[in-house]
């Protein structure tokens, strides 16, 4: 999309008009949650958060793939870094994620581990070909957005006879996590801003249960200020009429059925499994694992990796923050023991985490 067109979605006058309309139509508090790190950052970075009416409460849910990667998964890839004949390939955001004993990938590199930051999983094919004597292990974290490209990479590796590529599969799926959140009685959310990238793959249907089973609204939304304001405005209108709907406002990118080819490839290679989420714990059926017919690529099998729940982080309120029960600055560790330089909990780990965004962008 051209930048000129994108600019139209940032029109300050139009945004102001929608903000005024929302303000006049809000008869009580509206608590909305977004579940995508890009939305978290977009809301802060654009300055939108400072302009929202006081009665709109913005909550950031479990939408940052780095944040929800379980500590046991982090320790697993850190254990692999530095092993003989292993080259770890990863997206950049995992480089600083802390594991136990103060470890992270940046420190591992300083100690001599071979870690390559890639921009696309396809880059691992070249890496594997260039290093025939080594195992290239790609750290597969993220949601439905990244899983299909990794599946496609595995298919291409098989076609090209590349036998030294492995995938450490820690993928998670968004709708299952939302279902788990909504079934928790402690949470108090009026509506969801649904992720644009994930929905471009899975479409809108997988979210229907939000309105049908829980009578809450949810809108698939783009990342520009007008996209977000339009969805919030819609949710206010529906609530005022006593209705709940699931809709797609990001039609310039997201088709009703998503990208069937991508989901087909994803489920050809991966199967649903139980998964541990950092801060949320075990959510049945919310992960993806490599199917037996693709196990030649499975790094977990090759290295005998097991993911287990460890002791809870002392004082950290990330679990409550990811559920929208608490805001980041209500955590006793926020900005003190827990900062982006020295993150304790998952939400401070990635630049797209809600605590990190609070710390980075929020004016007192």
């Amino acid at each position, binding site marked *: 999309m051209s*930048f000129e067109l994108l600019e139209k979605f940032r029109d300050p006058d139009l945004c102001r008009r929608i903000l005024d309309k929302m303000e006049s139509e809000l008869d009580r508090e509206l608590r909305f949650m977004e579940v995508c790190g890009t939305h978290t950052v977009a809301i802060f970075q654009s*300055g939108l958060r400072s*302009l929202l009416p006081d009665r709109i409460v913005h909550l950031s849910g479990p939408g940052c793939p780095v944040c929800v990667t379980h500590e046991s998964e982090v320790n697993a890839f850190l254990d692999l870094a530095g092993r003989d004949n292993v080259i770890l390939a990863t997206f950049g955001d995992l480089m600083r994620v802390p594991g136990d004993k103060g470890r992270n990938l940046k420190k591992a590199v300083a100690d001599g581990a071979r870690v390559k930051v890639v*921009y696309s999983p396809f880059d691992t094919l070249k890496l594997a070909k260039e290093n025939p004597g080594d195992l290239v292990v790609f750290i597969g974290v993220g949601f439905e957005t990244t899983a299909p490209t990794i599946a496609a990479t595995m298919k291409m590796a098989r076609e090209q006879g590349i036998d030294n590529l492995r995938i450490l599969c820690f993928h998670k799926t968004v709708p299952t996590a939302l279902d788990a959140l909504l079934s928790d009685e402690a949470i108090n959310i009026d509506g969801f801003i649904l992720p644009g990238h994930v929905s471009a793959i899975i479409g809108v249907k997988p979210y229907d249960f939000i309105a049908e089973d829980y009578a809450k609204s949810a809108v698939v939304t783009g990342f520009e*200020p007008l996209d977000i304001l339009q969805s919030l405005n819609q949710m206010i209108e529906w609530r005022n009429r006593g209705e709940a709907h699931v809709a797609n406002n990001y039609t310039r990118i997201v088709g009703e059925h998503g990208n069937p080819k991508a989901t087909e490839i994803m489920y050809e290679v991966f199967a649903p499994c139980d998964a541990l989420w950092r801060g949320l714990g075990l959510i049945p059926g919310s992960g993806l694992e490599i199917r037996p017919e693709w196990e030649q690529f499975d790094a977990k099998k090759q290295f005998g990796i097991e993911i287990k729940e460890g002791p809870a982080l002392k004082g950290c309120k990330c679990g409550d923050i990811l559920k929208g029960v608490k805001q980041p600055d209500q955590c006793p560790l926020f900005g003190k023991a827990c900062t982006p*330089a020295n993150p304790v909990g998952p939400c401070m780990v990635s630049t797209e985490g809600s605590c990190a965004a609070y710390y980075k*962008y929020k004016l007192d």
Partner: protein
Amino acid sequence: MSDKVLLDYGSGGRASQRLISDLFLKYLGNDELDRLNDAAVLDLSGRIAMSTDSFTVDPIFFPGGDIGSLAVHGTVNDVAMMGAVPRYITCGYIIEEGLPMADLERIVQSMGEAAKHAGVKVVTGDTKVVPKGACDKIFINTTGIGEVIADPAPSGDAVLVSGTIGDHGLTVLGTREGLDFEAKVQSDSAALNHLLVKLVRELPEVHVLRDPTRGGLATTLNEITKSSNVCCELTETAIPVRPEVKGGCSILGLDPLYLANEGKFICILPGEYADKALEIMHADPLGQDACRIGTMTDANPGKVVLVTQLGGKRLLGMLEGEQLPRIC
């Protein structure tokens, strides 16, 4: 000379002598350097500004410059930012065994041209050749020295920037990773001292001159506000960023405000002189895109606040480390 740099060339023996006379003196030579004494003896007066920097950029050649010109521009600009006229620089080379001699020649030639253009003399230097793997191709340290002609002193003023932001950082990152952007970006690496001296000489008062190199505009402004305990309020729409840099950053998930610049400076001065300063900058090719991007205020001491396109306000903080590309 061999077509590759060998360990012999750093030994201090005949091979070293040949490298010095055939290459370094050829491109960098001047009456002081040509003496090849153990130390340079310099004429300077008044208060002196001095700065040192080591350059390890990868790749060593990139669109708009190379490690040689960058090593001159970086240090010359640091000295000039203190309101000083850079006069002399030193060069220390650490070269990895096996570097093609043609690459070294290209780098030294580029340094000579950059120094000549900046009006500084290379007055002393050193060369070490280290075994393969002990460094990455070539590292260069330069130290610069100059005479101070203005006093930096932050206060509540107009904030100007001399041109577009992020060009160098995105170019180096793009070249290093072999990314081919649809629209070409290139480094802005340039020596700014002539324009800076002009500003300081022609304006009654200039409080701060800084080059937003590593960490970019946002980091440099944070350093200024923290050290002077004032707030810098920036207008997002006024900050000049080339569309192609904006586009590249958007694809890679980077923020141009945190990308390095090597040919730009921030100028903070009393508001009444802002127009005159812009007039001087606009008359120079290195300042033709200069504009006013903000104002120093007392609202949030020590912080940089960005007034966004929407009219919202948010913090523009320091980065934790280097920017890293995101998952999605």
